[in-house]
């Protein structure tokens, strides 16, 4: 017996099934649907122990569908509407929804609903992770480094809003589509970043967040009406970053900074896919932050060694990025690039104009940069004191360990 189930089958299947069933039964039944889909997986884990069905996906779909109908039947108010569902015309409709292209369509609709402007940004991400990507409360809270209760609140607020405002399970009207697509990209970008920049202890969570973001961008790219330069650039950016995802943390679960990463371990096939996507962006006139961020990532990937990094080119892209979107974090990055270029006076000048609190939880990077600045000026004592500030300002254990290690190195000097 070949006991192999496709990786992440359940997770991906969860999102698909919820989307299709919501499309059919409506958002007002989303909680019943989520329960039904969850029940289906529990059933599978028990039933499949003895024999895996020939077509696991079809099995899951069938069971989830029947379970939803059962659950809805048991809700009296819904009785009249749904009691004949398994036969007759409605059965045909629901079966059609399970065709491949309809499944994709339902998932895309769900993404657009998740990014509806009535939901707050933080609710959007939590809702997307739950409903589209099948993350559990615990997983979401670990992924976003937020308490389970808070996530629970965000989820129920999101669901309430969708039902109360009677948000349709559909794409936004043509006039709104560009704006909404922008928000969709932003949510996916943030999801990816949570995975990529998070120093979450669990490697799986990091990789899963990135994987989900990439999967959904790919899903969007399948539809011609959503394709634009921005979307291709976002996809490229995610591929470039992902190519070095596994080099970022070593076996001992310690951070490996880019200057110490084993460049031969960067995953070339992803870089190639990213390059192809970058070429695609040329077919469109639009330009976005994702374009510049991808260009910066490429520069890092191009350099055979850290020392050979073309910092001037990176600086140029960062300046472009800052022109387009003057974010304080980008400004800090420009200072860091100047540090690499040894333009110490520029660095000092820039750092002194930054209001640290604007950097929020990334403030430690500011202090880290200051520490490097003093290190380069051979003022080791000052460097150490800034490292201390950096350590104080990160709640992230992995970052903390990294900074402490760096501090030890300096103390030996």
């Amino acid at each position: 017996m070949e006991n192999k189930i496709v990786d992440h089958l359940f997770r991906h299947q969860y999102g698909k099934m919820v989307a299709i069933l919501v499309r059919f039964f409506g958002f007002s039944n989303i909680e019943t649907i989520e329960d039904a889909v969850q029940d289906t997986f529990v059933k599978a884990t028990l039933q499949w122990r003895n024999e895996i069905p020939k077509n696991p996906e079809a099995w899951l779909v069938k069971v989830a569908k029947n379970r939803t109908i059962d659950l809805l039947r048991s809700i009296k108010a819904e009785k009249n509407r749904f009691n004949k569902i398994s036969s007759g015309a409605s059965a045909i409709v629901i079966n059609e929804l399970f065709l491949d292209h309809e499944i994709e369509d339902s998932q895309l609709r769900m993404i657009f609903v998740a990014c509806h402007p009535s939901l707050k940004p933080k609710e959007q991400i939590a809702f997307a992770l739950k409903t589209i990507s099948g993350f559990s409360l615990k997983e979401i809270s670990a992924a976003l480094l937020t308490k389970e209760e808070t996530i629970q609140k965000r989820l129920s607020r999101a669901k309430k809003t969708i039902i109360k405002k009677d948000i349709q399970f559909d794409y936004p009207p043509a006039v709104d589509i560009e704006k909404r697509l922008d928000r969709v990209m932003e949510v996916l970008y943030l999801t990816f970043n949570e995975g990529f920049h998070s120093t979450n202890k669990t490697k799986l969570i990091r990789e899963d967040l990135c994987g989900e973001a990439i999967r959904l961008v790919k899903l969007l790219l399948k539809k011609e009406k959503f394709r634009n330069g921005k979307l291709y650039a976002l996809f490229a950016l995610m591929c470039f970053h992902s190519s070095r995802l596994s080099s970022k943390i070593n076996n001992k679960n310690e951070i490996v900074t880019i200057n110490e990463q084993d460049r031969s371990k960067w995953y070339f096939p992803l870089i190639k896919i990213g390059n192809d996507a970058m070429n695609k962006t040329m077919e469109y006139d639009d330009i976005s932050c994702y374009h510049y961020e991808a260009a910066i990532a490429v520069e890092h990937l191009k350099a055979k060694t850290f020392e050979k990094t073309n910092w001037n080119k990176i600086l140029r892209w960062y300046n472009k990025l800052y022109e387009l979107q003057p974010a304080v974090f980008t400004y800090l990055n420009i200072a860091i690039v100047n540090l690499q270029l040894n333009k110490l006076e520029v660095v000092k000048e820039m750092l002194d104009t930054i209001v640290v609190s604007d950097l929020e939880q990334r403030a430690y990077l500011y202090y880290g940069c200051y520490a490097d600045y003093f290190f380069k000026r051979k003022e080791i004592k000052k460097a150490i004191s800034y490292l201390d500030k950096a350590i104080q300002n990160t709640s992230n254990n992995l970052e903390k360990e990294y900074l402490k290690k760096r501090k030890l190195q300096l103390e030996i000097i």
Partner: protein
Amino acid sequence: MKDFMMIFIGADYQELGLSPEQLQERMGKWFAWNDKMEGQGILKGGNALVPVVKHVSGPNRTITDGSLVEGKELVGGYYIVSAENADAVVEIAQDYPDYDLGGTVEIREVMVFDK
């Protein structure tokens, strides 16, 4: 060789609210264990049980619903394996996937009646 029943108690997936990903991971472990035992030719049967319980008890045949049974006391399924002795089954039971979820394996020898 004798027959032994491994009875799995507790670790009710439904009650624990595992995510789809976690459920799939659990299932993979069950598969691996199942395959291992089949490969050794010691697995003689087994079933998983639906977590809905009815109790009939007492002279009046009083019926109670199992909602009173706590998840951690619930029998979730069993396997029958053939082995030299109970110690050998303890060895086999090392691979039971759900200890970390509070699950227990109870090992009982199947009684053989004299003919």
